[in-house]
């Protein structure tokens, strides 16, 4: 056997291995398409794409964080905070509405990053604390949640969330662009390589002279900025800075990332997998809606069951791939 064929087979195997979630998604879509006539309607597909866009942006940042072996629980709160800040900033025009959330959320990410990288505290607990911090900030600037900032009709900022191309909302294209950029950053740059190295073997990365601390700080900043941006897009879409969104969103993002084949212990993962994971989550939710007659309490039972089936399926696919 020559090296070339060996190489080709190995990469084919690893592609299959990584795409356990893709297979699950494909299956899910086919079944949904056949069982529910409205699943395939353009409106429905557009809605799935749009809903996925917000989560995808957050999960993109989360992917980087998780590959470094960390976790970011603050994304849900930061997302909500970003939305409120965008709505608040929109009174001074487009740029303020965009920059205010990005800067503030980036700073929260920076705080996460510095605490994780410089003090050696567990990311789980650091970001749990900033989850509270961001919620607290949000409540503080909305006078305990009683003020809601609305984006004035006709504000240019609204377009960010509500404009469409071919019926697909701008957020879909923005999310897609960010994910492509994120994929390139992860796979094709030195920074991406050090992200993998830090997560795979931090001590080794340090001994190899990689900028471990800087890498960690950067991924948390990225996660903060991206969550803030998702919040800003959401605010533009909802036309106001809603205070009650984003609760528990971190778990959705983490689930999407992990289902996409990223290892929670770090060192392995792909952006494509995450996108697929996000798609899966929203398709599942959509299918549950399509079933329609389900009692609301059964709905969560069914989504739990779906989640289980998907992980088990993905896991057993990647196991068989491993065996080759």
């Amino acid at each position, binding site marked *: 056997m020559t090296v070339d064929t060996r190489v080709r087979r190995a990469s084919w195997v690893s592609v299959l291995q990584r795409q356990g979630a893709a297979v699950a998604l494909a299956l899910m879509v086919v079944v949904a398409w056949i069982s529910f006539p409205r699943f395939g309607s353009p409106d429905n597909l557009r809605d799935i794409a749009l809903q996925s866009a917000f989560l995808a942006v957050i999960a993109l940042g989360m992917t980087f964080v998780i590959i470094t072996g960390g976790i970011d629980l603050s994304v849900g709160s930061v997302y909500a905070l970003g939305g409120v800040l965008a709505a608040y900033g929109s009174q001074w025009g487009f740029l303020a509405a965009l920059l205010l959330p990005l800067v503030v959320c980036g700073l929260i990410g920076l705080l996460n990053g510095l605490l994780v990288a410089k003090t050696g505290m567990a990311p789980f607990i650091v970001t749990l604390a900033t989850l509270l911090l961001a919620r607290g900030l949000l409540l503080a600037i909305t006078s305990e949640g009683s003020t809601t900032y609305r984006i004035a009709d006709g504000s240019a900022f609204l377009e960010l969330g509500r404009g469409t191309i071919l019926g697909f909302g701008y957020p879909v294209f923005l999310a897609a662009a960010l994910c492509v950029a994120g994929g390139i950053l992860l796979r094709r740059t030195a920074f991406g390589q050090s992200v993998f190295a830090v997560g795979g073997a931090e001590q080794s990365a340090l001994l190899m*002279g990689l900028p471990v601390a800087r890498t960690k700080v950067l991924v948390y900043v990225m996660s903060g900025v991206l969550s803030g941006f998702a919040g800003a897009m959401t605010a533009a879409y909802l036309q106001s800075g809603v205070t009650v969104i984003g609760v528990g969103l971190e778990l959705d993002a983490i689930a999407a990332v992990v289902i996409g084949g990223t290892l929670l212990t770090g060192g392995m993962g792909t952006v494509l997998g995450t996108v697929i994971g996000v798609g899966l989550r929203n398709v599942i939710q959509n299918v549950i809606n399509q079933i329609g007659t389900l009692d609301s309490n059964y709905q969560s039972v069914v989504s739990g069951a779906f989640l289980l089936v998907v992980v088990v399926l993905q896991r057993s696919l990647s196991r068989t791939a491993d065996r080759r």
Partner: protein
Amino acid sequence: MVLEVVDVTKEFVGVRALDRVSFKLEPGEVHALVGENGAGKSTLIKVLTGVHRPTSGTLLHRGEPVVFTRPVDAQRAGISTIYQEVNLVPLMSVAGNLFLGREPRRRGLVDWKRMNADAAGVLAGYGIHSDVRRPLGTLGVGAQQMVALARAVATEADVVIMDEPTSSLEPREVETLFSVVERLHERGIAIVYVSHRMDELYRICDRVTVLRDGKHVHTGPLADLSRLELVSMMLGRSVGDIREHGATAFGVDHHAGREPVLEAKGLTSGTRLSDVSVSIRPGEVVGLAGLLGSGRSETARAIVGALPLDSGTVLVGGAALGPGVPNAMRAGVNMLAEDRKAEGIIPNLSVRENIVLAALPQLSRFGVVSRDRQDRIVDTFVKRLRIKVSSPEQKVSELSGGNQQKVLLARWLCTQPKVLLLDEPTRGIDVGAKAEVQALIDELAQEGLAVLLISSELEELLDGADRLVVLKDGAVVGELVGDQLTQDNVLAAIASGDAAAGESRAGESRAGESRAGESTAAESTAAESKAGRSGEGES
């Protein structure tokens, strides 16, 4: 002086690992650093490379005082290091590891195609012919060590430090390593070389520094010292006290029983093992010989149930073993794994707990462990294997490499097994303790234990084993008994049927060369040309 430390002391909580040690490295020399396990060699190296900050003392680089706060600082100053435990990223591809931090780029983006080609080319020069895209962790320790070597040498450096680089290498790879050392030497690069293998030291080193218990004992030309003198300096005993024996402490043949206690038949697992059969009789030491990646570790893992099998059975005392390690252990079959960092020690547990780990069920009643019996066992083995610990409650991760290895040996010996599979048991162990371990293996065999011995040191295999099974590419290619046990016979067995493989390997390295050539032509950024040069240099 390229690098110098003056009066360096390094204290860990409760341990003074270095005590006012001074060390000078001249440009272009190959400087041996020797000492018993736990003498402080690795610690000195870590002080030199900014991993540890000394408690007191100064560090001079080209005569200038420097403070390395992080490993990067040392690397920027031109010090490149291969640490004792492989420090690479197991989940990342081989090529990714090799080029981590200096990836070849095209239009600002990492050029994977070229990186893989370059990596394959570079590694072929080190005798590693595996797919560079597979995760590094799937390679054996020996192969990983070669990758670490290739990586360390590829960076522009004027000092290269190697901490026990040959501890899991085969004679053939050791030769490769020596030729690398030779080349570095010619380029005027200074080398610090740590090893417990005396032959190697005498072959390549100019000068030697001896450490004992964290203190500096001697520095001088190696040629001025006889082996015996060197060993006595390391151990701190007079020359007369040291028994003179051969290369190893193994005695003569054992009296093996008639019926094999363990029979492995037709072990086959993916592409790694094909139809390997081994049997061991009580009281017999069977050696497994073969080159790096020949499947010796895999054979041991398959026997103990740690490698899923496609086909094949393992019989112990005539009864087939169920799958999984616990079954094997219940039948009295134990394996000492080769990779002590990944598969051996439990880093955050104490030495005591690491030793008794496998024997816990035997040491407890109704699931409640008896502290007394633990302490007795631990005490016995710490003394017998001369494990250097401040207390049995010390974290095992704080021990020196050799002492960790001894802890693992103790773990398996205290379970009182019937069959012991030893994968590189003396890896990283100092001369004194090595003889001790070898004598112990002899003694255990004499008492009726069946031993499977895997070692990268051929002498150890030839002297220690009663019978030798030679593996190649995951298949048995020969079996040697009694008088047949000679180096030449082993090499001949390995060489037989080598033709096909040789051809394809030659093809690969040519491909590697031409790609590296291309890249030099296509210079566009400094980083690129640097990567290109390094690729060229090694292939």
